[in-house]
């Protein structure tokens, strides 16, 4: 019978030593909402579980919109949802995280877990990519900072080396007239894995013309995609019908989805375009300071 070890280190160094020195498979445990399901189903058979929740700074939100926020890797979604300043500056990031699973999942699930589980359909990831978040990674060779889009490399795989784990995320300072949003398509109203997800982050000038944009689409490729062409369709434009059409086309063109029990290639591609349009409208409204722009 496989024997499973568990450790709850209280410092970064201790955690790194445990992970780097593990003879078999070692997995980081923050919220556990993916890991425990994988353990129970036998999909994951680690030898060591390293629970990072006792490491100081691993959970919590600090900073401000203007200076930039720092979010502890293991911060539960419910804590992000309750953080008024973060929600005001980055409603897209918060709502994306908030959509994962149920209220119960929200009590535990974390941005780092969602990112490092590296599901193509992870909800928070398109919003994090669109936000240009940075992952602060610690490991045997010290600390390094990496744009989040460089972390997932394939379904279930990340670019983290043995012994490394994410300590926190940094969100960049928020320029004026900026807004982000995330929508996903699911067959029910809750509790489903995204069939398609889209996160868009824009900065506009005082006239409402887009000066900067990042568009990310999820569940349409082996990893979440940052779609440059879609961003380019927005930059320099207002959100008129022609821009929406170009955005839709660019989002669809980037899709490389599969047929699976959650969606077909054709359907996912079409809906990617639909969501891109709807998300852009909300992001632009938020950037323009329009009250009541929500995704529900």
């Amino acid at each position: 019978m496989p024997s499973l070890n568990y450790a709850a280190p209280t410092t970064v160094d201790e955690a790194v030593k445990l992970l780097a020195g593990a003879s078999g498979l070692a997995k980081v445990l923050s919220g556990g909402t993916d890991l425990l399901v994988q353990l129970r189903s036998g999909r994951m058979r680690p030898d060591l579980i390293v629970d990072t929740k006792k490491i100081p700074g691993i959970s919590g939100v600090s900073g401000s919109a203007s200076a930039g926020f720092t979010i502890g890797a293991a911060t539960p979604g419910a804590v992000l949802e309750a953080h008024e300043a973060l929600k005001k500056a980055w409603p897209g990031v918060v709502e994306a995280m908030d959509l994962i699973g149920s209220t119960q999942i929200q009590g535990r699930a974390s941005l780092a877990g969602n990112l490092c589980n590296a599901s193509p359909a992870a909800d928070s990831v398109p919003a994090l990519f669109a936000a240009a978040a940075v992952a602060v990674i610690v490991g045997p060779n010290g600390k390094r900072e990496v744009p989040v889009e460089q972390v997932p490399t394939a379904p279930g795989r990340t670019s983290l080396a043995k012994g490394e784990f994410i300590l926190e995320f940094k969100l960049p300072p928020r320029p004026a007239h900026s807004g982000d949003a995330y929508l996903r398509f699911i067959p029910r109203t809750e509790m489903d894995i995204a069939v398609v997800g889209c996160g868009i982050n824009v900065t506009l000038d005082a006239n409402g013309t887009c000066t900067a944009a990042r568009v990310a689409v999820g569940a349409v490729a082996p990893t979440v995609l940052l779609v440059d062409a879609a961003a380019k369709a927005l930059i320099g434009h207002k959100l008129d019908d022609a821009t929406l059409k170009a955005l839709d086309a660019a989002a669809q063109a980037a899709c490389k989805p599969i047929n699976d029990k959650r969606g077909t290639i054709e359907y996912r591609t079409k809906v990617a375009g639909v969501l891109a349009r709807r998300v852009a409208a909300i992001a632009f409204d938020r950037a323009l300071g329009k009250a009541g722009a929500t995704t529900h």
Partner: protein
Amino acid sequence: MAKHHVSAVINGEPTEFLCETQQTMLDVLRDELGLTGSKEGCASGDCGACSVIVDGSLVCSCLMLGCEAEGTTITTIEGIAQGDHLHPVQQKFLEHAALQCGFCTPGLIVASKALLDENPNPTEEEARYWLAGNLCRCTGYDKVIRAVMDAAAVMRGEKAA
């Protein structure tokens, strides 16, 4: 690995237990502590029948390892009533016939209490979305939501219990 020795406060009582690494908190509650009120419906966090409150957060106990409970404060269905004094959510579930087979009921009651602790005045839509993680196959949710809204009114002091 030898079993873990864990100390936590469960339903107000300081509690100690031994568990293997792979035992979830749900396994511990049911198999080690005899608290079988929390149920296993799926063991994958999709049904909410195992819902408990840990350090003030509503969670699925099937998605938490027993050893993660060290130093935490946990409320299970067994701790919702105070002696023989039912919580308003429990009372309203009975009055509204918001349960049929009763299997999802412990999870729903814990989740509803957590809702009303956080938001004493939810709309119907807010209540439905909060409780989306608690599957019920018998009631169609209608009487459940009515019971929760009615309990909320009682707890806000807007009507007699």
